[in-house]
């Protein structure tokens, strides 16, 4: 098992390398660049734009830009510096200021720039490090996504089992209709209707955001943490009130897939010979369903859930936007609309990493829950 995990972790390296290449080239093919946001501004001169490009290293050849972003090349620019370098020529690009290959960890004398060293650069709109932009958003997304995921998986399990046991019966029909309606609902419309009803007409719940701006400081700041420590019930209740509508939206839209999946897996399991064997032993029906059928039906479900975990970190773009939730999904949309290439690439690379890790996790979990699977 450990050998398997190590092999898979090594296998992740080329996967991530190629996805980073792919992300880089897709963004390059998109029209414009970080400087496009000045294009509509008549006060910005061509000279200023050229200076901006030079400052951000956008005047370098594209392979060098990528090489520096990934952290294999150092960040020195200008022919003069290159000429002064003892190694000389192009090769000096790959050497860190300490004189060893740049891609090595900085502790070993390598460079400290680039994705390899955990440095995703700075946001080209506000100058913040990309890592802190993402870090500030990921917690908010994990809270919303986590609550929604737990609720919808619990409901999906419950409704899927009920539907399978009462196959083609009344309960199954109701759950099926509910699933298809939810699945077919456009998220933005459902979200807006919920806001209109519960925040507008009834005025029961906030229409968006993650905290009450009049009472609670900004999420993630020291003041927020301090208030959470002093008045935990108040802060958590405030958070819960803000969670209700986006969670309902996410659950309603996402439950269908898992619920149908559980139903199908359960129907399959209930038709198996070992279920008949269990009944023939005199096992009570509830135990047959939970102990024998569901135990088997869970195998594919667990894998499916593990593959859904990246959602916790990547966020729900539409839902977060509608409910002004300060999460990753919204950070992504903001980065796109502001031509913030560094943040955009940071989010995409982190997403790729999380997806790959979730796949590995799915394989590992599968081997744990299914005794027939073992990795040599």
């Amino acid at each position, binding site marked *: 098992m450990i050998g398997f995990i190590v092999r898979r972790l090594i296998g992740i390296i080329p996967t991530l390398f190629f996805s980073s290449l792919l992300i880089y080239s897709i963004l390059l093919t998109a029209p414009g660049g970080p400087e496009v946001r000045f294009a509509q501004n008549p006060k910005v001169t061509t000279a200023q734009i050229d200076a901006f490009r030079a400052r951000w290293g956008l005047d370098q050849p594209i392979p060098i830009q990528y090489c520096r972003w990934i952290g294999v090349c150092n960040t020195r620019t200008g022919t003069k510096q290159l000429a002064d370098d003892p190694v000389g020529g192009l090769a000096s690009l790959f050497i860190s200021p300490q004189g060893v290959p740049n891609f090595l960890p900085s502790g070993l004398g390598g460079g400290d720039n680039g994705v390899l060293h955990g440095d995703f650069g700075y946001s080209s709109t506000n100058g913040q490090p990309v890592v802190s932009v993402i870090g500030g958003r990921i917690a908010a997304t994990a809270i919303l996504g986590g609550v929604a995921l737990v609720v919808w998986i619990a409901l999906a399990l419950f409704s899927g089992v009920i539907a399978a046991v009462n196959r083609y019966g009344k309960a199954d029909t109701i759950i099926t209709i509910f699933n298809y309606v939810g699945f077919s609902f456009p998220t933005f419309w459902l979200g807006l209707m919920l806001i209109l009803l519960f925040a507008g007409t009834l005025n029961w719940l906030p229409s968006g955001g993650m905290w009450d701006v009049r009472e609670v400081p900004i999420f993630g700041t020291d003041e927020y943490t301090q208030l959470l420590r002093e008045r935990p019930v108040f802060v958590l209740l405030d958070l819960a009130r803000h969670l209700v509508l986006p969670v309902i939206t996410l659950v309603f839209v996402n439950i269908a897939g898992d619920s149908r999946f559980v139903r199908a897996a359960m129907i399959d399991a209930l038709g*198996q010979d070992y279920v008949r*064997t269990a*009944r*023939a032993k005199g096992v009570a029906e509830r135990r047959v369903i939970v102990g*024998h059928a569901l135990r*088997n039906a869970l195998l594919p479900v667990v894998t499916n859930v593990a593959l859904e975990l990246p959602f916790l970190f990547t966020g729900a773009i539409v839902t977060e936007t509608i409910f002004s939730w300060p999460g990753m999904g919204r950070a992504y949309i903001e980065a796109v609309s502001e031509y913030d290439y560094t943040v955009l690439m940071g989010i995409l690379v982190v997403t790729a990493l999380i997806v790959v890790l979730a796949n590995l996790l799915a394989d590992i979990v599968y081997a744990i829950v*299914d*005794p*027939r699977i073992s990795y040599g």
Partner: protein
Amino acid sequence: MTTDLDPGAHALRAGVGDVLLDVRDLRTHFKVMDGLVKAVDGVSFSIRRGGRLALVGESGCGKSVTALTIMRLIDQPPGLIAGGEIMFNGRDLLKLSDQEIRKIRGGQIAMIFQEPMTSLNPVLTVGAQLTEAILLHQETDKKGARRIAQTALEDVGVADAKRRLDQYPHELSGGMRQRVMIAMALSCNPALIIADEPTTALDVTIQRQILELIKDIQTRTGAALLLITHDLGVVAETVDDVAVMYAGRVVETGSVEEVLLHPRHPYTRGLLESIPSQGKRGKPLSVIKGMVPNPFRMPPGCKFQPRCPYQWGECATGEAPLISLGEGISSRCLLHDPRFRDRLAAYDTPMGDPA
């Protein structure tokens, strides 16, 4: 030969007092999209305490459905137990509540299934599956159940039983899994063991071992055995009495010698003639012509009439009851109706004794 015309005649060589299981006029139907399938339509037979009966017939004749109905394991719907009685130890199993039948299942009646590869739960250990039944039906704790399970495994010839308890089904061979199923069946000392094609899915070499084991267990524990099979070779070696089924009905009953050596019903005769053997070398193999009737278009008279080489006008309209011929022998054929004694003489002569 005594002949009487009693529709309810089903008594094999069993006295009234020592009958363990008495199935009377059992009807199990299935409501499907295209209509009603009468999978079991008037099946009657009985088993003595400690007796061994085989239910024989080709695929789809209703023998497995009969077994599942006795265990009340038919899914309803689409299944429907339309009529009949299953008297077990003097109680009608069809009238028991769900909870009462659960006590009987696995406790007093145990079942061994056809597919050992899929009949065990793949995610539970052998021990967990064995002790589950023991804990349900016996007064014991987990430790005691584990001991009983280990003894049961040793009884069915599983080597290294203690280690096997912690193994999963996929770590065992097909024969070994069937041994586990048998251990599961015998662990609660049932009065009746139903074995539904227990050897069909196994290797030929393993088949004999498993059959011997079932016989051995049956003799040792004194449990009665209801063996469901399509294999007449298995029947000859394992049981005392036979009930032959065709199209949801019992068409012939009798002791194993009588049925195999002197078959009364034309269907049984056809079955036996279609077995290849040394003596028939070089001759074309005789077959039963035609197909099993479509369950939605059953012939109105005798269900075997369209395929029967001895049929005449009467057979297409009237169906014979199970006619008792004495000594537990009975046949559902108009030839054995006293009105057609002349025809019976002609039927008996050309065939003679197959022995």
